[in-house]
């Protein structure tokens, strides 16, 4: 069953990475941000826009393939792809680039995510989803069962999941606080992180105002303006390019058997809303890559909220179900711990590029360029948004 996945191991590589600054107000169009990140990734690889023949975007991005292609000057686009939803995207987008290359559909694929997530389209403000419509939902969104009842945002959805986890397993706010603190510690060492100069103590965390109980201010990520892009090509070709290549070991998506329709809200109707899609993505990824949780040196775990990390630590097999709280409080996630995570600060403290920043930081770790470089790290797990499905990517040092 897995022959093709095994044959594809380490055959493709991330040949270049590029980012803009992560900001509160870019003052520029999303297209300009995408363009800057894409050109930076190409420059990093030593490639030109004319070398690009594939582009993969996130379904939530306002920039299309032809928008970006025309802005950077792509001359012969033979493949374009799109996946998501939203933060599930980046790992799956890299997987799609890899699939296109392995299938002969393209040779050099740009994967990007760009957003003015703070100055223009704030995901935390639920009413942008209602768009002033007199009625909401329908057409298989299932939003009609949620938004008219006051469930409007991702934060509230994750709050419901958190409360459930607390009820079932005795997870505490302090457990979540340890996750926020670990990410902040990494951000404090990362000159690109928005929270580079802001320390966070457990006292600060607990004093953070309640947004949607039991989630407080510092359980939430940083709405951000910015963009990030990577160039994917064959590992063979990447060897001869400018930047140190990062091998793509494999990629997998997953969702619970009990998946339910809709975007994120129907997750609260699943038999176990505290099992993220990543559980099965992880199982598949480990099988296909031959690399299990014990062999992962560093991980970039999708963190729209602190609870997202906690649930995924369990789902990806770093601890048992229900033990994500004590595991997070053990110091394992902190610099020097047994499982350093989100070593650039993540969504919580570096910036929210909807999962693409996690791919960038993973590549930096595998190139030996992280501001919190894990000594001798050879494998890095990246995960994508936990709802409604999950996606995961395994990168290796070349």
């Amino acid at each position, binding site marked *: 069953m897995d022959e093709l996945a095994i044959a594809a191991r380490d055959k493709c590589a991330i040949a270049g990475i590029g980012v803009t600054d992560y900001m509160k107000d870019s003052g520029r169009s999303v297209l300009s941000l995408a363009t800057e990140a894409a050109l930076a990734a190409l420059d990093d690889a030593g490639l030109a826009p004319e070398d690009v023949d594939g582009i993969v975007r996130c379904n939530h991005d306002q920039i299309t393939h032809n928008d970006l292609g025309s802005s950077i000057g792509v001359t012969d686009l033979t493949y374009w792809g799109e996946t998501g939803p939203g933060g599930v995207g980046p790992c799956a987008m890299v997987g799609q680039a890899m699939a296109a290359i392995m299938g002969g559909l393209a040779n050099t694929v740009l994967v990007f995510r760009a957003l003015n997530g703070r100055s223009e389209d704030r995901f*935390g*403000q*639920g*009413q942008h989803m*209602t768009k002033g419509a*007199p*009625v*909401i*939902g*329908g*057409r*298989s969104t*299932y939003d*009609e*069962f*949620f*938004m*008219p*009842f*006051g*469930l*409007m*945002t991702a*934060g*509230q959805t994750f*709050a*419901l*999941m958190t*409360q*459930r986890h607390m*009820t079932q397993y005795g997870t505490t706010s302090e457990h979540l606080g340890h996750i926020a603190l670990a990410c902040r510690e990494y951000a404090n060492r990362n000159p690109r992180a928005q929270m580079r100069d802001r320390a966070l103590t457990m006292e600060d965390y607990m004093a953070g*105002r*309640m*947004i*949607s*109980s*039991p*989630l407080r201010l510092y359980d939430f990520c940083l709405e951000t303006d910015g963009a990030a892009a990577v160039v994917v090509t064959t590992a063979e070709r990447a060897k001869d390019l400018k930047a140190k290549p990062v091998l793509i070991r494999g990629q997998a998506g997953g969702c619970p058997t009990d998946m*339910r*329709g*809709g975007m994120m*809200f*129907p997750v*609260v*109707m699943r*038999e176990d*809303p505290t099992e993220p899609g990543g559980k099965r993505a992880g199982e598949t990824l480990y099988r296909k890559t031959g690399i299990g949780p014990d062999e992962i040196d560093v991980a970039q775990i999708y963190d729209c909220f602190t609870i997202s990390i906690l649930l995924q630590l369990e789902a990806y097999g770093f601890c048992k179900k229900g033990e994500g709280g004590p595991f997070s409080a053990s110091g394992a996630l902190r610099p020097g711990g047994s499982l350093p995570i989100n070593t650039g600060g993540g969504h919580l403290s570096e910036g929210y590029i909807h999962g693409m920043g996690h791919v960038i930081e993973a590549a930096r770790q595998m190139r030996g360029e992280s501001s919190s470089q894990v000594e001798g790290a050879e494998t890095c797990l990246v995960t994508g948004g936990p709802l409604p499905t999950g996606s995961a990517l395994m990168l290796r040092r070349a």
Partner: protein
Amino acid sequence: MADRVLPFKKDRDTGGFFAAADRHELVYRACNDCGASINPPHARCAACGSWNTGWKQASGKGRLFTWSVVEQQIHPAFPTPYTIVVVALEDDPSVRYVGYLDGAHDLKADMAMRVRFEPTEDGGALPQWIPDNAR
């Protein structure tokens, strides 16, 4: 409530739920052949493959599955604080519905809840959930 957010009631898969609510009845989708519940609702039963599905009357009683007290103001229709409740139906706990409670409430997991139909400005009603011991 200002700028009330009303559900789209004419969706071909879910409209029956809201039509029933307008009559102050609580229903859930289920397979007429194998009995499996289908929530959120759709026309085909994935458990047995039947298209013979329909709406089943619910008792209007349930248990609190999870909740959140919202303190951050998001939408003018929902002034803070308010409480989002997720309730598992007594008839089949695998079917859960979301409800809105004005204000902050001291709730406990698994507490008994009952449905209450809240009139809406379109002349219909929405099923909401309150603690069973509330007056």
